[in-house]
Each structure stands twice: as C-alpha cells, then as structure tokens.
C-alpha cells in the first residue's frame, strides 16, 4: 500500500487540491479508505488527518468501512421506484444473501441505495464499482449474481449489462446540427473576441443549469476583473433527479461542449478549464479524455490555439456522490479537493472562484449553445423562443410515457405539446425542474416551458393517474434530507424535521394542526437556508400542498393532537425484556376519540 500511495501522491504532485481524486483512487483499489492510507496521505500531503476523514465522510462514494469488492448501488430515484426498483433490490439482496446497506460476510459484495444515477430513461438502474447497470430485470440480476459469485472481473462481464443509450427522441436547432471541430473557435477569432461576446449578449442566452443568469453578463463580469488568472468550469454534476441530458451531450456532443468552453476561455482570458463530472458518469471519463486529446492533436487545445497566441487546456475532475456539488460554489470547493460546502456570497465565483481567482461556471448545455451562437450569430438564436427566454431547451423526459429520453424544444412550448410528443396518457401531473422545481397538476398543461413560467434545468418527470402524490413527495423530501451538506441549521436540521413531519402525516399519525405545522416549517427552511438546496428542499411539499391540500388533510386523524413521540413503541424494549405480551403491557397514546 505504501508504494501505491507514494506513487499516487506523486502523480498528483503532492497537491492537497487533488485530494478527492486521490481518495477516489484509494477507494477503487481497496473498496474503502483504510486507516493506514489516511495516516500516510496526511504525511505525504501535509494535511491534518481530520481533513482527510472529513472528505471521506462527506462524499457518498467514499467509505471508512470496507465495502464489497463488488460495490453495488441501486438508484432510489422516484422513476426507478416506479419501474419496480423496490422489488428488484429485495430480490437482489435475497439472491446475494446480503442485506441492503451491508457488506456480505465474505466481503465479496455490498449492496446499498444511491441517489438518482442519471439513467431515469433506462431504469431501474444501478452502479457496480461506479459503472452503470441499466434496465435491470430479475433475469439480468440473476446474471449479475452469478458473475459476482464466480468473482468474474468487471471487464469480462457482458457489455450489454452496461449499455447506456442516448435515446434522443426530438431534435431542434442545437441537436440536429453537428458542428465541425474548431468551427466555433475559428468563427470567434474571425469575428473578433469582443464582437463574439456581443453576439452571445444579443442571443439572449441564459444559463441552462437552472437559475437562468445571462451568460454574456457573467462572462463580461469575469473578463473585467483586475486579477488576470481566470478559470472556466463546466458544471456536469447533473444531480437533480430526473435530469440526464448532460450525460447525452457529453456522450455525443462533447466536442461542441469543449469548444464552447474554449470560446469562453478566449473571451474571459482563461488558460485553464475544468469539467466537473459527477461520479456517476465515470463511464464517460475515458471517452471524454479521448475527445480532449483529439482536440489537442488538432491544435484546438494547448499552446497557441489556431495560431492566435491563445493557450488553454481542460482537465476533468470527478465527483464522488454529492448532489450539493452541483451548486457552483460547492463545486469549486470540491474542485479544490474539499468538502462540497457552499461558500458565503459575496464574493461570487466571477470575482473569487477557483483558488480565489475569477471563475465562470456554466452548465454543459450553456456551453453547447454558446458554441452554436459563436457560429451562427446572436440574431439567429434570439429569433427562437419567447421574449425573456431565447433559444431552445433540452429536456430529459422520464416517468410515465411511451418514449422517455431527450427532447429539444423552443422555449414557449406548452406542457401539453410535450406530453403529446412523448406519448403520455392519463397524466396526473408533471414534476418540472426535478424535486427542487414545481409539481404541476393536469389543470396546468397549457403552461409554457420558459424562465418566466415553468423553468427547468432539464428534468421533466411524468406521473400518470395510478401514482400516489404523497409517495412522490416522500421520495423527494427524503432525497433532500440525504443530500443536505449540513452546513447551516435550517437545512441540516430542517430537512430532517420535514422528513419526520411528513412521515408522521403520511403514516397516518398526523392530527389537526400538523399540516399547518408542516407548512410553517417549509417556509422557515425555504427562507433561512444558506444555499439553493435548502431554499428549494420544501418545494415538493409546498407545491403539492398548494394544489392538493385535501390529500394531506385526508391523512389526518380526527383528534386534536397527536404527539410525535410514540409512547407504546417506546415501551417495546421493556416488554421484550419482561416477556410481556398482554394487553396491559400496552399503552394507548391518547384518549377515547381515537379513530
């Protein structure tokens, strides 16, 4: 181990900002971060050991306790659940003789749940040692169990187990035109750098990651900073459940995304860029490295790009299982090898980002669109869409529809038109923008896809009339509690309290006043949390409570107050110790009007 760690630390130049990458490598090899590795790395990188433990305990894919040599994770996303995930994971646990969340006694395999893996159009999905398993069925699980029990190395597993499809169902201006390598960059230099920024401004391009900040303005702010060391970062964390369009863009349009980053670098004057790739997309890492190499070979990355005296290169950094790292300042912390805790703002990343230097962070699709604008000009782009929302939006559509996958639409398209295209029938509602977005009911399908109406980073989950809204809300609320970084009180404690209070109502223990208490807790978490995670964590409850208050009320008992504490359950241990099973050993929680 010592030699391995020394070599690893050397590869990364003994730099603490590569700690996450180093720990990923240790985890991949030993299936946990062993105590001697912590000690050795603390010495090699000159770090307090507590900082290393801090990272390990923050990221879901790093572990202090040994995991199986085959680390199996099954996505717990709502769409996977709708496709029968619960039954499959129980079956798998049974066949493998391992309980969920545990390691088998022989240490060969471990099994656990994980947050959305970005494969919602081909679920139920999972990961084995970080690689995606798609469209799981009992038959496939039988194959997997045999392979594991026979200790077959992963490279020898049948490749169809790992097949990931693009499922591009509908293309518009961006997806239907493939750009030639270097086209956008050449156009940028031909037109002039300042003139190209003007085109991006005229295009009215707004960020595709969710918040919709004007891209040209962000680039301009960054380029006007007095500090001249600047960075470009592409946010490919794509953690919002139900979003998978960035996966497809990086699989089939990576060159154009990198080109957009390079155009940005030319405009803001950056020499280094990063692609922050979520850990779930490990399978894209090598192909993306190959695309970068092609671009270097073509003189589109590296020194003196296109003979313009412009130097720029891109490195890929992998995440390790943390939704919060999609938040731009948490992402920057993670790039620096730290826990993904959102920073205090101001200062914003455009003034003090990576290593304290001015940094532009944009979504994958934003860079893709920027490259197209660099070629085709701002007016072309601005002629599509609505007043405040120009161009097209690429959606990841999943849930109850005939053809899940990738759809590109001009902004302003109605929800009904989208539902018709993807073959959705008997629709109860749609979750637009993922759990942090809005649940809309069937009365609202004339609403439009647009920043001024229904904004989405790309997630579009369809539910038909057979689905139970409270199950959906429950899944999302648990997701946020699991993903809270824990930095601030309202989000750390509040998301757990939301989970408890919602469970209380859903499980039928709520009474009058409990819905009002839930709502006021939602408001507090929303208004006082430090970052967007906490500020949107109550949205699943708030948006459904506004539309279906009767669903919540119907769950309440007809008593005035039900304590959160279950008196009878608390006596269970005592009953077991006293071996009492008679009626007198049970206590009624409240008085006579128990329903």
């Amino acid at each position, binding site marked *: 181990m010592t030699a391995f760690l020394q070599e690893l630390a050397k590869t990364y130049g003994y730099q603490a900002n590569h700690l996450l990458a180093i720990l990923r490598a240790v985890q991949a090899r030993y299936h946990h971060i062993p105590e001697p590795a912590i000690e050795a790395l603390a010495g090699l990188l000159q770090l307090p050991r*507590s*900082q290393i433990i801090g990272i390990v*305990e923050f990221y879901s894919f790093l572990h202090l306790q040994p995991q199986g040599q085959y680390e199996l994770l099954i996505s717990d996303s709502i769409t996977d659940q709708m496709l029968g995930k619960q039954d499959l994971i129980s079956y798998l646990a049974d066949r493998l003789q391992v309980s969920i969340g545990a390691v088998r006694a022989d240490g060969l395999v471990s099994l656990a749940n994980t947050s959305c893996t970005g494969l919602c159009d081909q679920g139920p999905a999972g990961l084995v040692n970080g690689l995606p398993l798609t469209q799981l069925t009992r038959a496939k699980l039988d194959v997997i169990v045999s392979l594991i029990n026979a200790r077959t190395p992963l490279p020898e597993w049948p490749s169809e187990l790992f097949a990931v499809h693009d499922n591009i169902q509908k293309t518009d201006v961006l997806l239907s035109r493939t750009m030639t390598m270097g086209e956008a960059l050449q156009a940028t230099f031909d037109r002039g750098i300042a003139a190209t920024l003007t085109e991006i401004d005229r295009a009215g391009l707004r960020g595709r990651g969710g918040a919709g900040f004007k891209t040209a303005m962000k680039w301009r702010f960054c380029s006007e900073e007095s500090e001249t060391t600047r960075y470009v970062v592409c946010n490919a964390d794509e953690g919002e459940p139900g979003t998978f369009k960035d996966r497809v863009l990086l699989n089939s349009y990576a060159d154009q995304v990198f080109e957009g980053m390079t155009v940005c670098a030319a405009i803001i004057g950056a020499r280094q860029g990063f692609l922050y790739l979520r850990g779930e997309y490990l399978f894209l890492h090598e192909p993306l490295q190959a695309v970068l190499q092609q671009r270097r070979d073509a003189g589109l990355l590296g020194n003196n790009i296109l003979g313009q005296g412009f130097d720029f290169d891109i490195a890929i950094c992998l995440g390790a299982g943390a939704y919060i790292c999609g938040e731009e300042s948490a992402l920057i912390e993670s790039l620096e090898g730290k826990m993904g805790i959102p920073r205090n703002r101001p200062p914003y990343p455009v003034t003090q980002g990576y290593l304290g230097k001015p940094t532009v962070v944009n979504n994958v699709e934003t860079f893709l669109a920027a490259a197209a604008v660099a070629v085709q000009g701002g007016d072309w782009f601005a002629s599509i869409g609505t007043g405040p929302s120009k161009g097209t939006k690429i959606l990841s559509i999943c849930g109850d529809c005939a053809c899940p996958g990738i759809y590109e639409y001009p902004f302003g398209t109605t929800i009904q038109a989208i539902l018709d295209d993807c073959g959705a029938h008997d629709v109860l509602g749609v979750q637009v923008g993922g759990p942090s977005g809005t649940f809309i009911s069937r009365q609202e399908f004339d609403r439009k896809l647009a920043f001024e109406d229904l904004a989405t980073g790309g997630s579009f989950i369809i539910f038909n009339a057979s689905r139970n809204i409270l199950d959906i809300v429950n899944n999302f609320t648990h997701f946020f509690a699991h993903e*809270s970084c824990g*930095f601030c*009180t*309202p989000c750390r*404690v509040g998301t757990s309290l939301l989970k408890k209070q919602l469970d209380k109502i859903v499980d039928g223990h709520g009474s009058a006043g409990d819905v009002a208490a839930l709502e006021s807790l939602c408001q507090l978490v929303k208004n*006082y949390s430090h970052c967007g995670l906490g500020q949107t964590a109550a949205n699943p409850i708030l948006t459904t409570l506004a539309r279906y208050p009767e669903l919540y009320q119907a769950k309440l008992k007809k008593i005035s107050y039900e304590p959160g504490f279950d008196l009878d359950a608390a006596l269970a241990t005592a009953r077991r110790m006293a071996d009492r099973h008679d009626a007198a050993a049970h206590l009624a929680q409240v008085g006579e009007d128990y329903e």
Partner: protein
Amino acid sequence: MSKTITIDGKAIPFTEGQTIMQAATAADVYIPHLCHHPEFTPHGSCKLCTVKVNGRNCSACTFPAAEGQEVLNNTQELNSDRKTITQMLFVEGNHFCPSCEKTGNCQLQAVAYHLNMLDDHFPLFYAHRAMDASHPEVLIDHNRCIFCTLCVRASREHDGKAVFAISGRGINKHLLVNSTSGQLKDSDLDSGDKAAHICPTGAILIKHTAYQVPIGQRVYDHHQINEVSLASEHPHGE
C-alpha cells in the same frame, strides 16, 4: 465622509469592508448570533443572525454593509424565526440544561431565553453521541455541540494548531479531534488554548472548575445575552 446603513430605521455608520454585524456591534446594536465571534473569520452557518437587507434575508455576520442598505433586525417575524432555529439546535443535540455544567454561562441557553423560547417545539432527535473525557484538563461532550466551528477556527487561527474539525454530511455532522486515536488526550490541545475556552455551549468544558461559580451567580443569570454580548464584543472593548 462615513457611510451609513439603517438598522430598524436607525442610522448606523460603517466603514468599507465591515459586515453588517460588525457595523451593528460597533453602534451598540445587538443582532442575535452563535457561530459569530469578532476575533475569527465569519462562518455564517447557524443563521441566527439573519436580518432582512432591502427585503432579502442575509446573514449579518458575513454580509458586507453597503451604503443605503435598509436592514431589519429586531422584528417580531425575525425573532420568532430565530427562536425556531434555536429550537432546531436544541432538538438536534441532547441538551439537558439542569444537569449541564455550562448552564447559566451558555450562549445557546441565553439566546433561547432572549428569544423567549419556552419549549422544544419539535420532536427530539435523541442522537447517539459520545463523551471524550480522555484529556486530563479538557472534556468534550458531543451531545451539546452545535457545529458552530468556533473551536475549529480558534485552534487554527489563534492557537496555530488544527485540533478540531467538522466532518460528515447533513444531519450526520460531527466534531472530529485531530489525533490518530481520535481522542483529545492524543491531540496537541493544551488547556490554555483559545480553542478550549471558546465553545458557546457546554460541549467543551475545562475540567476541575465545575460549579466553582454557583448556579444563580452565572453570567446569564443576571444579564441578558444582548447586554453581555455588546459589552464583550464591542470593538473598543468597553
């Protein structure tokens, strides 16, 4: 020309670079806080100091003062929400004030009094947390840690050490001691370190000093936290 903001309608001068908290403290205006301490880099995590700046919620301890800001601080709505946040801190840990040596000197308790918190409101989490009594002079009771990171910052910024760290994600957050055994006795903490004396709650206590000041004669038994805080944290040290 000094610049001004208003807090609850009153003009408050500030100098460029000051946070709202710093400007307020200098002008003898109390903004409730727990993770803030004037000697250390602001952290912004407890959210007790939330004020409304031109209608938007901001953490006073980290948000820069800027000319013309209208800040709301001592309003019923903010204080009621601050009380709820304090209740969250209480139920997350295990705070049994009557049996805690810090009672009467505890800032968490004092803030709760100040905000008129009369109950926990939320269900208790009953978190399983340990004690570390290994060090000859200093005791850690993890049950009372509110993750304010003051000990972390004091150790790093004042003592030039790195005895403490906060680890874990979400509700699994916990305080770590930087030693091979994870125990305080194996760390390089000295009982004279600032980090050993900075804890706003009863999570880090100095041994052999318990009850030297009887209950009833402690800091917050006679003074509200707003008075104590302004007297001790005023930049002129008055």
